[in-house]
C-alpha cells in the first residue's frame, strides 16, 4: 500500500518534470524566433560588420593619440556634469519621499490617492531623461538648467518607485503598535516606518546618484550642458583626438563615482 502511494508520487514528479521540460523548450523556441525576427527587422548583418572593421580601424588611427592639451578646458564642463547629477538626485528626494508615502498602499490616505500618485510616478519614470531634456531645452533654452530639470523629473519617478516599494515592505505589526499607542498618521510613519526603511532609501538614492552621473554625460547631446556638450562639439567638428580625451575622462570619473557609491552603500547596511 505504502509502495503504491510512493510510486504514485514518483509518477507525479516525473510527469511534472516532463511538463516543465516541455515548457522550457517552448519558451526557448519562442525567444529564438523573436530574436531572428528582430535581426531581420534591424538589418543585423555580420558580413556588413566585417566590411566595416577596416573603417573602425581607420577611425581608431585618426583618434590616437588622445589630445590631452584640452583637459583644462574640459574641467569646467566635467564639473558641471557632476553638479547636474548631484542636483538631479538631491532635489527629487524632497518630492519622491512625500509622494512615496501617498503611493504606498500601507500609508496612503486612501486607495484612489495611491493609484493616482503611482500613475504620476510611473509617467515621470517611464519618460527617459533624454526625452525630458529635449522637451525642456525647447521650453527653457540650452544649457545645464534644462538638464538638471530633466534629471529631476526622471529621478522623482525612479526614487518614488524605490521608496514606495521600501515602505510597502515594512512590518505592518510595528505600524499597528504605534497606532495602538495613540500615534497620529505622521508619527506612525516617522517612528514605525522611517527607521526601518531609511537604509534602503539611502541605498537606492546612492544608486540614482550613480545613474544620474552617467545620464548627465549624455544630456549634452541634446544641448543640455556638461561634458556631453563638449563631446558633441568635438564629434561634429571631427576632432577625434579630443573625443577620445573626453571619453577617457568620462569613464575615469564614472568609475571613481561607482566606487564611492559602492563604498557608501556598503557602509549603510
Amino acid at each position, binding site marked *: 500500500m505504502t509502495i503504491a502511494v510512493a510510486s504514485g508520487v514518483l509518477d507525479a514528479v516525473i510527469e511534472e518534470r516532463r511538463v516543465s521540460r516541455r515548457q522550457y523548450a517552448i519558451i526557448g523556441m519562442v525567444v529564438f524566433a523573436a530574436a531572428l525576427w528582430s535581426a531581420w527587422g534591424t538589418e543585423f548583418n555580420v558580413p556588413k560588420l566585417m566590411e566595416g572593421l577596416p573603417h573602425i580601424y581607420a577611425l581608431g588611427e585618426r583618434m590616437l593619440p588622445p589630445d590631452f592639451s584640452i583637459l583644462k578646458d574640459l574641467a569646467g564642463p566635467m564639473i558641471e556634469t557632476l553638479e547636474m547629477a548631484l542636483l538631479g538626485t538631491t532635489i527629487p528626494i524632497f518630492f519622491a519621499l512625500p509622494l512615496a508615502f501617498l503611493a504606498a498602499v500601507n500609508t496612503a490616505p486612501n486607495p484612489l490617492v495611491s493609484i493616482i500618485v503611482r500613475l504620476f510616478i510611473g509617467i515621470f519614470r517611464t519618460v527617459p531623461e533624454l526625452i525630458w531634456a529635449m522637451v525642456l531645452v525647447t521650453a527653457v533654452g540650452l544649457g545645464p538648467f534644462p538638464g538638471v530639470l530633466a534629471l529631476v523629473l526622471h529621478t522623482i519617478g525612479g526614487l518614488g518607485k524605490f521608496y514606495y516599494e521600501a515602505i510597502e515592505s515594512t512590518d505592518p505589526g510595528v505600524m*499597528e*503598535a504605534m497606532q495602538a499607542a495613540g500615534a497620529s498618521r505622521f508619527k506612525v510613519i516617522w517612528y514605525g516606518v522611517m527607521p526601518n526603511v531609511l537604509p534602503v532609501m539611502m541605498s537606492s538614492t546612492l544608486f540614482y546618484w550613480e545613474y544620474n552621473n552617467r545620464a548627465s554625460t549624455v544630456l549634452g547631446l541634446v544641448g543640455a550642458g556638461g561634458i556631453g556638450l563638449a563631446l558633441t562639439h568635438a564629434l561634429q567638428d571631427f576632432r577625434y583626438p579630443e573625443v577620445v580625451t573626453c571619453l577617457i575622462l568620462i569613464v575615469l570619473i564614472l568609475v571613481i563615482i561607482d566606487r564611492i557609491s559602492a563604498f557608501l552603500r556598503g557602509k549603510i547596511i
Partner: protein
Amino acid sequence: MNIEADQTTMVEVRNLTKAYGSSAPAIEDISLSFKKGEFIVLLGPSGVGKSTLLRCLNFLVRPTSGIVKINGQELGALSKKGLLQARHHIGMIFQEFNLVNRMSVLMNVMCGRLGTLGTWRALTYNFSPEDHEAAVRALVRAGLEDQELYLRRADTLSGGQKQRVAIARMLIQEPKVILADEPIASLDVMMRAQIMDLIKDIAQRDGLTVVMSLHQLDVAKNYADRIIALAQGQVTFDGPPNELTDAVIERVFNKPADEIDEEQTVEITEAPAE
C-alpha cells in the same frame, strides 16, 4: 477572584459586529462587559475572531456595528484626535512584540508616549528628559534592569527581552486597560510563565483590566479570572476557569479535552525559542 476587582465597568461592548467585505462576519453581535482589575482571557483556536474582537476594543479595527466603551468613553463617538487620546490609555502588546528593529531599546519604549508627544519633538526624535526617566522606570518594572541593554538596538535582544521592552512601552502609556494579543505564542516555555507572571503582577498592583487572547488552555486556566471562549465569531462560554468543563472545552476546540493538552505540549516543545 482578583481582590482588586471592583464593580466599576472598564470595558463595555454592545452588539459588536465586524465583517470584512461581504464574507461572514469575523465577530457577530457580541455583548460583554469587563470590570476594573479583571483578568479576561479570550480562548479558542485561531481564526475564531479573538484578534478581531481585541482590535475592536481600541478601534485598530473599526467595528461594522455596535458600541465599544472604554472607561465610560464611547470610542465610536470620538473625534480623530479624541480617539488617539483614548488609545494612549489603552496599552497593547503583541505576539511578535512589534518593536522597531533599528531603534534603541529606550527609544522603542518612549514610542509609548507618541500619543502625547508634541509635533516638533516628534519630528526631531527629541523625547523630553521626563520621557527618558519614565522609560527607564518602565524598563526596570518590566524586569530589564541591565542598563547596558537600553542603548542597544531592539533586534539584538532575545524574544523574552523583546516582550519585556514591549511591556515597558505599554507601561509608559499609564494604561487603564491592557490588550494582549497572544503575548506568549512566540516565546519558549520558561519565558511564557515569566511573562504571564509579569503581566498578572502589573495588572494586580495597578488594578488594570487585562483582555488577552490565548490558545493555550492550561495557561488560560492558571491566570484568568474569567474565560471567554469564541467560536464562529460568537461567545460560546463566559465564566470563571473552574466552570470550564471538559464538555465545554470539547465544544470550543472541537475535539476531546485530553487531546488538546497533548497538542499543547507538542506545540510548546516546537515553539520557536529565540
